[in-house]
């Protein structure tokens, strides 16, 4: 058994790597008021550039480090110039969505270039260890610590002693005033992205050496850990981010020592939610202050929604119903069934994120709650599937709303981070609660869909069932939107302060939106579980949450017809053109980027 000393050293080293990420996130947030979800992807790129340098070019360690710094620093400049700057005048959530799109593009590019298989990064320093008390410190530990301290000192000196360092701080404090002093804030952004990305890249190569393994998918977790550290230290607070990182590293390390490796992330996300709810300005915020205002503002581009003529909608529905009779292609019918299920998810998210303005990044968790509830009730207790489907919907509505309710007091980007964290917590609970969820093995042999006592095996029958459910719930959502609740939710989205000043309690209406939307998502997840007869904790992952958001944006936020159209376009088309899986995610990333930039109102316009 390793000693507490070792756990402490391990925690500090991991914390050091988190700090390399979190400091960059804090700098970027400071000057751009943006939570950069592409940050972990830069770290992945850093790790792979490091791998190429060490394994292919066989460079010595200092040269490897220099190559990584140069490459990722340049990448940061490119990201800022083409991904972020064009969105300077867009709603605050737009650049955040763009960085999510960028992260998909970067991760998938790395995966396509280097294959999804893990790779080992040869350690370039001798593997000596110094024994102290009951534990030991390795040369690499010291090196990582040294690099962390050096980077922090250099950054501090830059910010405190140089003209551009002042410009960075001044821009973070008051962007408009800095511009009035003649500061080129584009240049400041460029500098900050370069520094942040270079630090992230160094983090990537160091973690590769520390764990001796890198994968193209490790970026997302790194982003999340960086964000958790940043939130703990106070968003945008650079020294706070360092302390937050070390704290997170220690908490995780001790937590793992107590409960086991699979609990590592649970600790991180529970810490995240606790801080967001209890001290949204971070551990070190002293004065009572208003939260940074610029982060509010929803992703709703003013536009006139396209009014679809009723005959056209009726004709499209008729075609959709008649399709299995007209076309003899089980594959196409299955694909469209899938599209109807995603449309349900899209309807759910377009209500929550579009109509109510709460940009949720954890929507897949609602699918998971619905899916697991229905699957377990049907397989363990033998309840009829039509009933468990309904219960799955209600469970997602109830549990989902309850879980997300602590985040109702948050605004803007904080909502997105919190929902993301809550989504991760749900996935981790499913993974760790083996007695109920069967843990990583998943639930297999889920009873098939049934209706009125008849099991549905036929592809066409399942298709019609899915379509009927989706159409029915879409009509229900239209009815909701035309009631007083429609305008109330939209008022909360447009200006929550003004809404509250007219007696609209945010908890009540955000709760209603999540409950109504949660029901849809729960039904969709439950349907999926019975259709595939197998689910596990990875069936409903964060990529699905982001895909759902892309569907909602593509259709037009808040737009019911748009959500259905978006689902058909994003699920149906790649399937019909048989795009390979890894290119499909690349495609989703590019779609999100292009949409945010060129058509934020989506295909059918926001409502």
């Amino acid at each position, binding site marked *: 058994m390793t000693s507490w000393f070792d756990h402490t050293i391990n925690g500090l080293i991991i914390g050091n790597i988190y700090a390399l990420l979190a400091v960059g996130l804090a700098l970027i947030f400071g000057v751009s008021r943006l939570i950069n979800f592409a940050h972990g992807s830069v770290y992945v790129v850093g790790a792979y550039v490091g791998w190429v340098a060490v394994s292919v070019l066989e460079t010595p360690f200092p040269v490897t480090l220099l190559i990584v710094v140069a490459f990722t620093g340049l990448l940061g400049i490119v990201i800022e110039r083409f991904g972020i700057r064009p969105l300077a005048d867009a709603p605050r959530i737009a650049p955040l969505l763009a960085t999510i799109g960028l992260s998909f593009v970067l991760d998938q590019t790395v995966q396509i270039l280097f294959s999804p298989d893990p790779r080992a990064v040869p350690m370039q320093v001798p593997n000596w260890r110094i024994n102290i008390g009951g534990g030991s410190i390795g040369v690499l530990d010291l090196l990582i610590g040294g690099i962390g301290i050096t980077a922090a000192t250099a950054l501090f000196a830059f910010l405190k002693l140089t003209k551009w360092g002042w410009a960075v701080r001044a821009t973070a404090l008051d962007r408009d005033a800095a511009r009035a002093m003649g500061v080129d804030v584009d240049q400041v952004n460029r500098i900050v992205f370069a520094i942040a990305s270079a630090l992230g890249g160094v983090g990537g190569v160091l973690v590769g050496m520390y764990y001796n393994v890198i994968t193209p998918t490790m970026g997302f977790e790194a982003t999340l850990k960086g964000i958790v550290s940043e939130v703990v230290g106070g968003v945008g607070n650079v020294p706070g981010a360092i302390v937050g990182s070390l704290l997170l590293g220690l908490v995780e390390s001790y937590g793992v020592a107590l409960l086991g490796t699979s609990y590592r992330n649970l600790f991180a996300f529970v810490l995240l939610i606790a801080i967001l709810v209890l001290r949204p300005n971070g551990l070190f915020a002293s004065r009572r202050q208003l939260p940074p205002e610029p982060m509010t503002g929803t992703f709703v581009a003013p536009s006139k929604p396209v009014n679809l003529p009723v005959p056209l909608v009726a004709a499209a529905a008729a075609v959709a119903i008649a399709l299995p009779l007209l076309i003899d292609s089980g594959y196409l019918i299955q694909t469209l069934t899938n599209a109807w299920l995603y449309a349900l998810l899209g309807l759910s998210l377009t209500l929550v994120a579009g109509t109510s303005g709460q940009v949720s990044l954890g929507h897949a968790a609602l699918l998971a709650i619905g899916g697991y509830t229905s699957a377990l009730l049907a397989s363990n207790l033998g309840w009829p599937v039509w009933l468990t489907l309904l219960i799955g919907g209600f469970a997602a509505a109830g549990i989902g709303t309850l879980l997300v309710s602590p985040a109702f007091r948050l605004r803007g980007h904080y909502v997105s981070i919190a929902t993301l964290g809550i989504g991760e917590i749900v996935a981790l609970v499913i993974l760790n609660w083996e007695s109920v969820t069967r843990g990583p093995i998943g639930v297999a042999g889920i009873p098939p869909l049934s209706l009125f006592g008849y099991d549905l095996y036929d592809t066409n029958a399942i298709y019609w069932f899915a379509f009927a459910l989706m159409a029915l719930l879409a009509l229900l959502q239209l009815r*909701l939107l035309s*009631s007083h609740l429609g305008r109330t939710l939209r008022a909360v989205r447009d*200006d929550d*302060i*003004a809404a509250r000043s007219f007696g609209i309690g945010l908890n009540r209406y955000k709760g209603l939106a999540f409950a109504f939307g949660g029901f849809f998502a729960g039904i969709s997840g439950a349907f999926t579980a019975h259709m595939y007869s197998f689910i596990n904790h990875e069936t409903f992952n964060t990529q699905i949450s982001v895909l759902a958001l892309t569907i909602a944006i593509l259709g037009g936020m808040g737009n019911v017809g748009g959500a259905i159209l978006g689902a058909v376009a994003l699920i149906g088309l790649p399937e019909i053109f048989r795009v390979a899986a890894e290119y499909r995610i690349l495609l989703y990333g590019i779609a999100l980027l292009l949409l945010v930039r060129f058509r934020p109102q989506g295909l059918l316009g926001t409502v």
Partner: protein
Amino acid sequence: MNALVPNPALDAPHPLLEARGLVRRFGGLTAVGGIDLSISEGELLSVIGPNGAGKTTAFNLISGLDRPDEGSIRFNGIDITGKPPEAVHAAGLSRTFQHGRVFANLSVADNVLVGAHRRLRAVRPPWPVIGPLAELALALIRPPSVKAEEAALREEVREILSIFGERLLPRIDQPAYSLSYANRRRVEIARALASRPKLLLLDEPTAGMNQTETAEMLEIIADLKARGQTILLIEHKLDMVMRLSDRVIVLDDGKKIAEGAPLAVRNDPAVIEAYLGHGGVGAAAAAGPASGDSVRLLA
């Protein structure tokens, strides 16, 4: 502070709104430094003072958008100190905002209907979980009573908008983001009126309006007052303040420097000094009519 005239609010047994010793600090700055303020039913009280004097901060403290560091506020018989805005609104207070916080993507009609939110029958049950679910059920099922209520409210919205003549009625279905600045201010006032408030807070209702529009707004506010509406008004256009107010409070540098009848306040040396500057516009004007050959009137 100059007590220039008997304060009607102090004579009334229970003023509708009574704020005592309000203090709000931001960093090294004291935006509001111990303000007392009270208003009786049916009264129109104006708060004037230069920009940065703390008027809007005081409004935010009263309406629950911000919490005072010190002091207490009673409204309509209950203590609303530090209460959230929805609670203050529930007690009967509605406000407009200085920069026009309309719901940009909602139509004019929907903006005003949001003002009537608290009056909806469906909204009333306050119980947790059951209340919202009942509200959802009523919204989806929409029984005849709910339909009738909505129809009556829509009719009322037209009535409210008609006080602005043809300014808003032809635009009733247009989204608020397409409106002019002045029209947004009007929508805000209509929204506040739809809630039938006991106390109406107006934060510079004529900012950004030209002379004709300002005169129009003056008539509308005078009319509201004649109908018995209690109004707390922040305004810069002194003429308007003089004509409308029962009483005026003057703030400067976060403190109340004068209070009393409009004319008395207008001639108070401390007010002239702080608000109108040394010598003051009035004093300068008293020196004689414009010689101003080199002054060109362009408007």
